[in-house]
């Protein structure tokens, strides 16, 4: 535990260091002349007129703004300070790396083209092709939500049954073990033939790959519930349903979340594979068609969206976990 609170002055300095890196990237973009040949197109975006570079600088400005807001929050809530202060140099370095990338990719264009366009060209996608990228993002999100959601429900139900009934464990656990080690992709040809469309077959495969870790972790959590806790509940008048839903399942919650978290990782992988191999939409699909048209800026833009989307999903999951497991001793991440 940190005994002493980090003073506001240090938070202020961290905010300056953090902003400075991105500010240098903005100034570099503004003042370093365009050496290589590149057409700088203009875009109308609502009432604003942007070009390739000014949009990039606006985004950098937005990043600075977000970090400044985080800094203000850190002043307001002291428990946020250590993280904010600790990460200042990494953030500074991000700005410098962006500057180097901007120089190499856009100003000089010495990175292999067209595979590695500069940061401004990657961002350009959001203006050029924003709505279509958005549409594909929503497609991915929907596929993920349905497949992962069904996987969670199936995993929980089978996990509880297997963990609670020894007979179910005897007959079903080996089946789970065997199907669990088969990578979900192996089911692909099979899924594509029995399901009516691409969407439902991808849902099936994502559900399968989430199902295994959730079911086995849930079963494990239920089976390891101490006998004494069941006994305590029974002396209080508990019947079987109470033992399952109010003793075994709460006890299994930490393991259930472990299962859900690893299932989440599996689902991300599978989502992108499925989309690249025959979905009519989604970020994986978007990457594929961008590659076919050799618009690599769009490939990177889709990767950036994925990084943000998946990080947000993981963060939300962590928040839910921290809330549900608030009864646990100590801290965990």
């Amino acid at each position, binding site marked *: 535990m940190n005994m002493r609170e980090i003073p506001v002055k240090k938070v202020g300095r961290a905010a300056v260091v953090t902003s400075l890196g991105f500010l240098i990237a903005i100034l570099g973009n503004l003042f370093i002349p365009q050496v290589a040949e590149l057409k700088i197109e203009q875009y109308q975006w609502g009432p604003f007129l942007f070009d390739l570079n000014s949009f990039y600088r606006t985004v950098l400005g937005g990043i600075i703004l977000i970090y400044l807001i985080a800094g203000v929050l850190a002043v307001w809530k002291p428990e946020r300070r250590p993280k904010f202060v600790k990460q200042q140099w990494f953030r500074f370095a991000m700005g410098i790396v962006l500057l180097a990338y901007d120089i190499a990719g856009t100003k000089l264009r010495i990175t292999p083209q067209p595979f590695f366009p500069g940061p401004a060209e990657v961002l350009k996608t959001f203006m050029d092709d924003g709505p279509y990228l958005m549409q594909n993002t929503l497609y991915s999100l929907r596929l993920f939500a349905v497949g992962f959601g069904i996987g969670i429900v199936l995993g929980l139900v089978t996990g509880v049954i297997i963990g609670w009934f020894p007979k179910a464990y005897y007959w079903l656990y080996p089946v789970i073990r065997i199907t669990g080690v088969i990578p979900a992709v192996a089911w692909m040809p099979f899924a594509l033939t029995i399901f009516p469309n691409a969407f439902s077959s991808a849902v099936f495969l994502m559900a399968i790959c989430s199902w295994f870790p959730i079911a086995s972790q849930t079963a494990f959590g239920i089976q390891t519930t101490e006998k004494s806790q069941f006994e305590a509940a029974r002396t*209080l*008048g*508990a019947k079987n349903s*109470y033992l399952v839903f*109010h003793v075994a399942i709460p006890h299994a919650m930490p393991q259930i979340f472990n299962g859900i978290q690893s299932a989440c990782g599996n689902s991300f992988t599978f989502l992108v594979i499925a989309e690249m191999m025959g979905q009519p939409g989604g970020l994986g699909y978007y990457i594929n068609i961008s590659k076919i048209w050799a618009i690599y800026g769009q490939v990177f833009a889709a990767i950036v969206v994925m990084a943000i989307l998946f990080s947000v999903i993981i963060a939300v999951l962590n928040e839910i976990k921290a809330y549900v497991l608030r*009864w646990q001793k100590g801290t965990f991440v």
Partner: protein
Amino acid sequence: MSDSIIEIRNVNRVYALEDHPLDEASGVQALRDINLKVKRGEFLSIIGPSGCGKTTLLRLIGGLDEPQAGDLLMDGEKIKGPDPKRGYVFQQGSLFPWLTVENNIAAGLRARGVYRQYKAQVSKFIHMVGLDGFEKSYPHQISGGMAQRVAIARALINDPEVLLLDEPMGALDSFTRADIQDKLLEIHREDHKTMILVTHDVDEAIYLSDRIVIMTPRPGKIHEIVNVRLPERRERTSNDFLELRKDIMKRFHSASAEGSGVDMAAYI
């Protein structure tokens, strides 16, 4: 109604050793020929050294275990499984770690499906065990003494006719222990619930009980039952108290000598 609430007749309990057929030669005889009548409303203590079968006996009364031979009756009816009529306070660590103090105490109401009716009781019991202000704390955030008070309140909220206590203060320091002992006495005086307390602390037994059952180790048998003829409010340093203590210690020794010579020094 007879004046005994619990009746134990010729009870034997043998724990099988793994991979052996169940017979006395190969198992641990935890209890042998136990006969005991517990009077309605009395405070009965069971003392004996570790491993003499105290927990085994209490679990049988609680319905958490079954004897190989003999009968256990409550109000003339055979005890079959646990029942909220018999509240149980475990040695330690039996709270549900995922429930707050108030929800642990309310667990019995929820388990029996009567939470809505008796919701108001929860704060009454929190107050009774002196845990106001800790309603929203989780078990890992409170001390061992507070946890045992929660366990007692959790058992009492079901309004049991008998309260079974298995060394509930065994792991606590002497101040906390004295504090909970007084709490138990207060509860006992208020509504005259039958209380059966397992302990290996002779002072505690004398301070609280109407009668004390002294057990012999290996196999666990009842050596004798001592009536505590002391006034209701007891002074641990009064002559009568000390006299009785000396007497019980003597009996305790002869009971232990009858068993297989467990070192008694630890219990004096």
